[in-house]
């Protein structure tokens, strides 16, 4: 179980995440919605410590994640894979190596030294990565540089990297916001599949309430860093939405669309 306790992050005078407390049982698929700037990205990045909290704690199965450092922190990041809106692949590395980055945290001692020195992974790891790429229809481009791929393909590579981490938790920050509908469906289904078949918990930031309703067990709505709704998708009806945001679902979706169209908002 993942537990956030009074989690807070300030950037100067902006309180990006404001005293958020949440408990996410293992195996849950949680959708997080909110308008641009609500603090969704910051919340996810607090969980894997890409951002340090100003106050509060993150606990996973009773372990205080916010106190980890060094090797233990690397281990935690391996256990909670992240999928980014902009994919965050290393553009000049080939697709196979990008996928293999998900296996980096499993290389220790001499093997780690060899991987760092030569950039080459053991054959068993390569085979494992190829099988994963094959599952997502990427075998044909495995030896191409990541920069030559389309956005949809890149996000599939990022998913392969995430799944190869054999994580217990996946943090997905607007994973489909830059994708066409077909790829968006593919990515959401893959997250759903990982959640259902392997019991991996998923925390996913989404622009569209509709998508959250279709795939998630539970929805959290954020506003100005705070959690303003937490419940089953069916509870978040038009009336609740209007009470929270003063907008209809269609207006909210249009706003999200506009925000996503703005170039490269992390």
């Amino acid at each position, binding site marked *: 179980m993942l537990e956030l306790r009074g989690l807070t992050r300030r950037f100067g005078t902006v309180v990006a995440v404001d005293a958020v407390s949440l408990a996410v049982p293992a195996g849950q698929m949680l959708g997080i919605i909110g308008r641009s700037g609500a603090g969704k990205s910051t919340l996810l990045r607090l969980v894997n410590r890409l951002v340090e909290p100003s106050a509060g704690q993150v606990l996973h199965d009773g372990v205080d994640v916010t106190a980890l450092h060094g090797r233990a922190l690397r281990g935690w990041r391996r256990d909670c894979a992240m999928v*980014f809106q902009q994919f*965050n692949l*290393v553009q000049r590395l080939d697709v196979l190596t990008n996928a293999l980055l998900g296996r980096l945290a499993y290389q220790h001692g001499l093997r780690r030294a060899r991987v760092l020195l030569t950039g080459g992974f053991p054959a068993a790891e390569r085979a494992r990565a190829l099988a994963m790429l094959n599952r997502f229809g990427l075998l044909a481009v495995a030896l191409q540089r990541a920069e030559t791929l389309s956005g949809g393909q890149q996000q599939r590579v990022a998913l392969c990297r995430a799944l190869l981490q054999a994580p217990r938790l996946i943090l997905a920050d607007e994973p489909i916001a830059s994708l066409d509908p077909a790829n968006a469906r593919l990515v959401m289904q893959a997250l759903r599949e990982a959640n259902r078949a392997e019991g991996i918990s998923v925390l996913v930031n989404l622009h569209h309430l509709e998508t959250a309703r279709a795939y998630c067990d539970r929805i959290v709505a954020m506003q100005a860093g705070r959690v303003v709704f937490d419940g089953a998708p069916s509870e978040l009806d038009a009336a609740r939405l209007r009470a929270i945001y003063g907008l209809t679902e269609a207006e909210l979706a249009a706003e999200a669309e506009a925000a996503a169209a703005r170039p490269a908002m992390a």
Partner: protein
Amino acid sequence: MSGTEVAAWRARLPEAFAPPPRRRLWRALVAAAFLAWLGWALAQFGFTPARLWQGLSGLAAILRLMLPPSPGALWGDILRGLAESVAMALLGTVVAALLALPLGFLGARNLVTATLLRFSIRRLFDGFRGIDQLIWALAYVRAVGLGPLAGVLAIATADIAVLAKLYAEAIEAVERRQVEGVAAAGGGWAERLRFGVLPQVLPVMLAQALYFFESNTRAAAILGVVGAGGIGLQIAERIRVRAWDEVAFIILLMIVTVAAIDWLSAWLRQRLIGGRR
């Protein structure tokens, strides 16, 4: 436009027609001061038309002696000297690039957050850059003796600081997202550098090293004159005995070599940097 209209506009905005008298006086003073300084400096260096003319005719005499260029008797020495110069340039650049790599990482703002350390490293780079290769060569010839080793060391020492600065700048320009992807997968600092930063900066770094190699093949020729190995020694010797036709031959060979290396390195750099969509 009639004369009265012109006069009217002139009255309305005089600065649009001529600068104010104060500024004109100022400009005249600056110009006079510059001319006076130029005249004084030329006189100091004994720059008279007569000497200029003598110099030009001396140069013409040398040019006449250069024709036709001839390899002389010591073909082997010339080729060996040329090869030595190129080897010195290559070795010096490789050593400089290898040492500049870690220094560049240390000097990069986005990697080294210890401001004082980074600041002192950057100032050190700046200090080293102020000292020319030839000065280093003179120092190394005293330190390690005559020969190509002094040349290699001079080239390397002079280039480390400049390359390290360029490398630090390349590292500062990396895309943070790609590094973050490695971090999020559980990569430690070594993994982030190796798989997140290095693939982004390596082609740029290699291209810069190649560029330095080009300019070092030109510079290496001169190092021999002060005894630091290479073709420069052959040239100096032949100038001493006024074998200008052989000097001309060596110069032609050098031009061909430098051109070939420029071409090769431009092609390689193109291949390294290219390949983007």
